[in-house]
């Protein structure tokens, strides 16, 4: 990889200052960024490692919200009793990201900021209607994700926490790409406190993570696997690669959604 300056501040304001420099880039757990740097696909002049900032780490319940610090690792979320009690789907999701070593380093903030179209976390953030809190503002998940690897984060903006509304029920059904073991097509299903159902899909969309309205409507009025059968999931807009055709992905959206419904009923 190209060389750069490396800095590891211990408080947020120092990190934000460092990120103001030209060519500065934030480093979360590095589990995606470091392979990208190895391929020389990015050339930051300064890398600002956020992993030393304790205030970005931690999980807490605030009323009907679960708040996860932006620097919290997947492993910490997967092992959290608070998360298991509030949003079991997030435990399922984080315990399926990568492998134990990736989970020990990778963070929720890094995953969301990267918005890899095959990453797991964006499906949960979108399905649960999470709020992404940065050092500058609060962003609703539906505004946050803006296509492949794109978000509305601005230069120097750091994800400090993610607030998840606690649903009545949740589950994550992952179907892995056979090589990378990222999501080929995975579904985060949330049954909200008001009875509405939300379905976040990752790995499938040519434009990245999305919610499937047809499935949500059907399941909101009839929360059953057979309701999924009646929904037509179009292959249009699904991505196409070595591992899956749009038609196959469309099929997986339905199959994974059905499994999700069965998992929580």
């Amino acid at each position: 990889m190209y060389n750069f300056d490396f800095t590891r501040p211990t408080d947020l304001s120092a990190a934000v200052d460092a990120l103001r420099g030209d060519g500065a880039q934030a480093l979360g757990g590095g589990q995606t960024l470091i392979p990208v740097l190895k391929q020389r696909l990015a050339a930051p002049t300064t890398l600002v490692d956020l992993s030393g900032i304790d205030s970005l780490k931690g999980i807490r319940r605030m009323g009907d919200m679960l708040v996860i610090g932006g620097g919290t690792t997947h492993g910490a979320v997967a092992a959290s009793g608070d998360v298991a009690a509030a949003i079991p789907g997030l435990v399922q999701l984080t315990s399926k990201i990568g492998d134990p070593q990736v989970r020990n380093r990778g963070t929720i903030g890094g995953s969301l900021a990267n918005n890899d179209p095959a990453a797991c976390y964006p499906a949960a953030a979108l399905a649960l209607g999470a709020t992404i809190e940065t050092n500058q503002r609060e962003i609703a998940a539906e505004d946050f994700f803006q296509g492949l690897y794109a978000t509305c984060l601005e230069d120097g903006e750091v994800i400090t926490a993610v607030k998840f509304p606690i649903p009545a029920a949740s589950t994550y059904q992952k179907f892995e790409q056979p090589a990378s073991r990222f999501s080929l097509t995975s579904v985060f299903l949330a049954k909200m406190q008001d009875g509405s159902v939300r379905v976040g899909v990752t790995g499938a969309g040519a434009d990245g993570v999305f919610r499937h309205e047809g499935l949500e409507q059907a399941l909101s009025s009839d929360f059953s696997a057979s309701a999924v059968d009646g929904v037509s999931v179009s292959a249009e807009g699904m991505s196409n690669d070595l591992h899956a055709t749009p038609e196959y992905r469309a099929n997986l959206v339905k199959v994974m959604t059905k499994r999700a419904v069965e998992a929580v009923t």
Partner: protein
Amino acid sequence: MATISMTVNGKQVSGEAQGNTLLVEFLRQELKLTGTHVGCDTSQCGACVVHVNGESVKSCSVFASACDGGSVTTIEGMANDDGTLGVIQQAFQNEHGLQCGFCTPGMVMSIADMLKNNPQPTEAEIREGLKGNICRCTGYHNIVKAAQSAAATLAGAAQAAE
């Protein structure tokens, strides 16, 4: 170049690192600890797994500078003090859990962390726990047996200590 310091296998060490120096490069080139291997460039093969501050990580996906002041354990730190093989290492030999030996250090380090968090894993949990480690020689069969055998030995030792 900056000088960084860390505890490696119980010893305080320091050495030179650039901003982009990976932990595995620091271990292999600066500290000459060549037991940690590099088998891929996409953070998948796990030949480079070491422990940083008690957790298993891929040392090809962590910068050396991020470990400044921390504690690192590598395969070279896994034998008993008298130089004999540690429990997991011995289980690998007993069960023929290695062939060419290249992935082995990473396997041992991953299993050590796995058994710390889950002392009595099922076969499925062991296989799932090795998702970050690729072996091309053994078909994993005897690696799984080594993990099971090490778990049994460690459980026996824990019981004896009680």
